């Protein structure tokens, strides 16, 4: 990479070239990898979404927006949008509230806080296949522990969870909340610890009690974090695949099939790369919209502070 044999250049030009070369040398390893494995595929994704191709040696054909018309005409695809949204509705708010609650509880100066923190965070670290396997057994409709407990507390006819098309998504959502709230708890905890203690001291002097402090200091100070967590959770919901795949496989009867399940199946089961990519573009548009909301929101918080 070192260069400098060309003696007819002035020393200033030489330095410039050398600076350029060093700059590129630093950036290049990542840049090459990123271009090849991320940037080109992203572009390619847009191209594929207007093509018809089954992955075989036959050339792809341009079909315009036909793929989009096809998927929106597909009852299963419209179903996946609906399921993904209902999944988001069922997980985002509970995760957020529980994460905040846990963080507030753990923000007290108590002995053994670290142990609790570990306990709450652990499901997030546990591998999804193991988690899916154990919850599937817990939710076993006829003799699983969850329904045994429900029967014991007097619910004679408990839901059949993953086996029932109306309850399967609820089961997945419960596991999702359980698994991910620990992660957002940590995010909240960091934000809580960032709140200056002088604010609380001042409030104490003014005679505020614990609940007042919570409502008038903690909650408002956490608004930017809450907004951030809200956005992240929503995006995560639209990308959900693993949990559904290991718990229900999208069933029963497509009842839990999500957007990414659809993309995966179209691409890797039926070899319809066109519709699969069209589905991917839909996902992109959704995530982009949420991200734009985040950007404008962030600008607002920063201006306010």
């Amino acid at each position: 990479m070192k260069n400098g044999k060309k003696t007819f250049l002035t020393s200033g030009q030489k330095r410039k070239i050398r600076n350029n070369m060093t700059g590129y040398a630093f950036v290049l390893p990542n840049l090459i990898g990123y271009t090849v494995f991320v940037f080109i595929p992203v572009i390619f994704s847009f191209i594929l979404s207007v093509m018809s191709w089954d992955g075989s040696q036959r050339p792809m054909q341009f079909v315009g927006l036909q793929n989009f018309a096809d998927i929106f005409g597909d009852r299963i695809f419209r179903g996946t949008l609906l399921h993904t949204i209902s999944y988001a509705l069922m997980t985002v708010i509970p995760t957020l509230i529980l994460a905040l609650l846990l963080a507030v509880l753990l923000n007290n100066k108590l002995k053994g806080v670290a142990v609790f923190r570990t306990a709450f965070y652990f499901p997030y670290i546990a591998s999804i296949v193991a988690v899916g396997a154990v919850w599937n057994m817990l939710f076993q409709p006829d003799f699983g522990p969850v329904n045994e407990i429900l029967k014991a507390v007097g619910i004679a006819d408990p839901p059949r969870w993953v086996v029932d098309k109306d309850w399967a998504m609820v089961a997945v959502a419960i596991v999702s909340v359980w698994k991910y709230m620990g992660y957002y708890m940590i995010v909240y905890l960091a934000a809580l610890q960032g709140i200056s203690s002088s604010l609380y001291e001042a409030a104490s002097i003014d005679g505020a009690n614990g609940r007042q402090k919570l409502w008038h200091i903690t909650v408002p100070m956490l608004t930017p974090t809450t907004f951030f967590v809200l956005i992240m959770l929503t995006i995560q919901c639209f990308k959900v695949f693993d949990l559904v795949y290991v718990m229900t496989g999208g069933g029963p009867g497509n009842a839990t099939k999500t957007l990414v399940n659809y993309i995966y199946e179209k691409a890797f089961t039926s070899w319809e790369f066109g519709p699969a990519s069209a589905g991917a573009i839909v996902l992109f548009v959704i995530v982009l919209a949420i991200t734009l909301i985040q950007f404008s929101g962030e600008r607002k918080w920063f201006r306010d502070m």
Partner: protein
Amino acid sequence: MRKRRLTAALMAGIMVCGMLTACQSKTVQDQQGGEEETAQTSDAGETSGSNSGAPEGKQVLSVTTWDNESSPQFQAVIDAYEEENPDVEIKVIDTSADEYNNSLGISLSAAQPDPDVIWVKDMGSMLQMADKEQLLPIDDFIEEDNLDLSIYKGAAEQLMYNGKSYSLPYRNDWYVLYYNKDLFDAAEVEYPSNDMTWEEYYDLAAKMTSGEGSSKVYGSHNHTWQALVTNWAVQDGKHTVVEKDYSFMKPWYEQGLALQDGGYIQDYSTLKTANIHYSSVFKNQQCAMMPMGTWFIATMMQSQEEGETDFNWGIATIPHSKDTEAGYTVGALTPIAISAFTDQPDLAWDFVKFASSEKAAEILAKQGVFTGIPSETAFQTIAAAERFPEGESNVEALNYTHYSFDRPLDPQIEEIRTVLNEVHEMIMIHSYSVDEGIAELTKRVGEIKGWN
């Protein structure tokens, strides 16, 4: 302290790598490539087979299999071939049965030279692969070697697509009824006979259902395949699963649902969501009977051999409908083919030829596998095998008088089967009534075939 040291070590490692990357001005890919080689990971495209440490000069042939560990159906032939050709090493790419077609499709769409030889799971996917030109036509090989196709009794011709041969029949299987002798003995019920109508079978299933909770024993077991209902609808040979009108399936779906709703078989959605393999249900003695293909004989024999299970089991002829006599069955061929992208077609052909030869058939028969070469001796060998259930009725159960394919050789069969599977699921979980399901089938299959 320890944590700090750990970080330091990690940092040092990173530094070294960082220096390598920058100083040598090498791209990351090169460096990674180097690491890969030392890590001895299989590298597609090379026939030298770096992953298994094969001695120099050994040819490596890669083959794809499914559930290889639970059945000897592939390994027996692979071992025999390796023994006969010491300079060839067979590399097995194994996938679980339910993901097999999926993952095979992924490798083929990449047009990679591996795998060389493909065991095709069913005739439908063979047609699909042949249609996508992912399989190598083998007519020239057949001609060159003067291969006698008559030993397959017409099966080889059945597998042709557009007048070309893409595969040879490897296995031939048909449906029989498995039962757990111990459970029947305990209930003091007579074993299923080789001449039973479906109605008698349903009554028997109801009779054999006992227990509660997790210790419940189901009378029978239907796996989640659509075949476990539709097969019986096409058993008499009057219909196939590609029809303009599906109303002939109605009684079969009603009966399938009755079995499920009566609690005589495990319900569809439990099996489906928990992804439960039929063999584990039978092996765990959770069902008294199970209609399944003859390939399961080898699985059971191996399981007994390895001591995984040790209960007495038996085989009966599959039940028949009221208006036919016993001996009507449904089955399918398992072809073996060569990938169109193989870089060693001659070696691949040699293996394919061996795997579908009479010699291989003999080896397989000892393991309880029925090959594409139907012969009386093969039957005798299977029946005489050590772990084959004792009793003349078990051998009789293997006989059939009429054989229909579980799916017709229709170029669009895979697409149609997707519809069949979807509707099957909807009916079994009560999302559709039987009538709605049949209307949907008639409509959507008609659309695929261009009939309406």
